[in-house]
């Protein structure tokens, strides 16, 4: 389900119209004007990057790193090939926004990537798409064909000296490939295990060449920024949190779906847009930025605004903008058990602290959830977590530890009760 409210990517997109994703519909909405503007004016590359910088756009995949700054890291005078890569390997539980971009407005992403290719002097790009959304991959390939036929991709685009081509590559079931260097390994046809950094992809990326990787939503925001100006995008959000953002709301709300709203919108407003709590139940907890973000109690959440700074000040992170809402019927030990299983299942196995640690976290939480917890288990979880976080090549270990720390901090009484009484404090119901 897609519910779009007010934002730059889905402006004017009628998601109920079966052809809304096609190039004609996109161009009728003002699509490819930004690319034409750049090419007709022969705009200097650094001016394009400066415009993106001025928008305050921060990486929409989870880390929130300024997109324009990332683009400026690409070496200007590198003699060989350079690549631009899009990360549509959307597998962070709770996140489902990039799928809707591919299904309803893929040309915004294509145009954004062409502009990125122009700004950074790349000749080719790849979009790495989550294998589970295979139908979106097939549709994206069709959209690429449309763009190629219209002369926006290929040799000498619109009669200029700029040539750029773009291809789709699919994953096939590995959460870890959402990590950018694992994604590069996978794009090279290897198992998706993250690389040591440095070197960073801007100097040693795809096939060892300078590469910039951005999230789908980040690229799809670029045409608006170039067409209407970075300042306008910035003003749509709040300082240091420029623009509008897609929030994926799931869980116990009446209307789960994607909501594109200005950064800085109060959480209470977002919850209301999503139809409020299902069955009028009480809000218990919210994971505000995808399963790896620390959980926050419902009452804390009700006082926050949806932007990087507000959520971060409250001890969590905006992440990918995936908001998982839980009501009073959820046993927090059961909820954590399910997340712990996920990280155990998805650890790539490269680093010992993560490979072994995610297994230990799951086993201990599983036994607590099943009334077999032992005194000292919460300390054991702490100890295992401390031996994982920050001790591995990538952040998956940290992502596995954040939920454990935050669930056991904010809902400690439920864990203690279950360990002591061998039954849950809550009469647990998933839904």
């Amino acid at each position, binding site marked *: 389900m897609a519910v779009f409210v007010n934002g730059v990517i889905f402006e004017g997109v009628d998601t109920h119209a079966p052809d809304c994703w096609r190039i004609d519909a996109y161009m009728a909405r003002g699509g490819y004007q930004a690319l034409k503007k750049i090419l007709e004016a022969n705009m200097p590359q650094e001016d394009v990057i400066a415009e993106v910088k001025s928008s305050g756009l921060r990486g929409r995949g989870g880390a929130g790193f300024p997109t324009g700054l990332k683009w400026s890291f690409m070496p200007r005078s590198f003699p060989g090939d350079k690549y631009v890569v899009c990360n549509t390997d959307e597998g962070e539980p709770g996140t489902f926004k990039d799928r809707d971009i591919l299904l309803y407005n893929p040309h915004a992403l294509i145009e954004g990537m062409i502009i990125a290719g122009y700004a950074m002097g790349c000749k080719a790009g790849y979009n790495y798409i989550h294998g589970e959304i295979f139908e979106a991959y097939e549709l994206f390939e069709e959209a690429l064909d449309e763009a190629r036929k219209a002369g926006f991709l290929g040799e000498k685009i619109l009669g200029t000296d700029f040539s750029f081509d773009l291809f789709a590559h699919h994953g096939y079931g590995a959460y870890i490939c959402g990590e950018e260097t694992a994604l590069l390994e996978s794009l*090279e*046809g290897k198992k998706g295990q993250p690389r040591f950094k440095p070197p960073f992809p801007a100097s040693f990326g795809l096939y060892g060449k300078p590469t910039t990787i951005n999230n789908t939503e980040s690229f799809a925001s670029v045409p608006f920024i170039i067409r209407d100006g970075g300042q306008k995008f910035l003003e749509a959000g709040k300082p240091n949190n420029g623009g509008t953002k897609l929030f994926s709301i*799931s869980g116990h709300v009446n209307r789960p779906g994607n909501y594109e709203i200005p950064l800085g919108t109060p959480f209470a407003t977002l919850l209301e847009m999503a139809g409020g709590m299902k069955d009028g139940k009480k809000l218990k907890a919210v994971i505000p930025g995808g399963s790896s973000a620390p959980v926050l109690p419902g009452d804390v959440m009700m006082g926050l605004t949806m932007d990087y700074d507000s959520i971060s000040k409250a001890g969590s992170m905006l992440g990918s903008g995936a908001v998982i809402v839980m009501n009073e019927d959820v046993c927090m030990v059961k909820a954590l058990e399910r997340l712990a299983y996920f990280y155990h299942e998805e650890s790539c196995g490269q680093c010992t602290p993560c490979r072994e640690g995610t297994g230990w976290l799951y086993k201990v939480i599983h036994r607590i959830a099943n009334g077999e917890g032992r005194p000292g288990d919460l300390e054991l979880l702490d100890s295992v977590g401390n031996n994982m976080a920050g001790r591995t090549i990538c952040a998956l270990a940290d992502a596995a530890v954040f939920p454990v720390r935050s669930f056991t901090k904010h809902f400690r009484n439920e864990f203690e009760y279950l360990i002591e009484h061998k039954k849950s404090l809550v009469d647990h119901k998933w839904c």
Partner: protein
Amino acid sequence: MLSAESLAKIDRELAKYPADQFRSAAMSALRIALTERRDTGATPAERCLNADVIEFVANYIGIPPVAAYEVATFYNMYDMKPVGKYKITVCTNLPCALQGGVNAAQYISGKLGIALGETSADGKYTLLEGECMGACGDAPVLLLNNHKMCSFMTPEAIDKKLAELE
């Protein structure tokens, strides 16, 4: 070992990558091989990948067999074990569970008379529990044969879908 149609599809994938980077096409080439086997295999064992198919794909795209094997075994959507004619993967991760994912998995399990992870005795169905498919807003969701996503799978929707699978 693969049809001309599948080989043509692999050729199109190869064209996406630089001439010295054919290894990049391993993922899609294995997917194409698996899809052909699923569509044409008569038994569960004929519907999954095996060492011979993997070696054939590797030779076709010009990479060492072990490089293709690495890909086939790392990514969990490549079926390396016998699989039913209809492989049903239900997401039971937290966001889906909050919207009926676990209930959907249990309902299908009861209806087909097989537990999660099992294949029915007649080789028709395999039921699996999956991790995040990036479609939590549509929960409960399931993947049919890896590529077809089925959204809002209430018991009624499941009944209807299973009735279509003959």
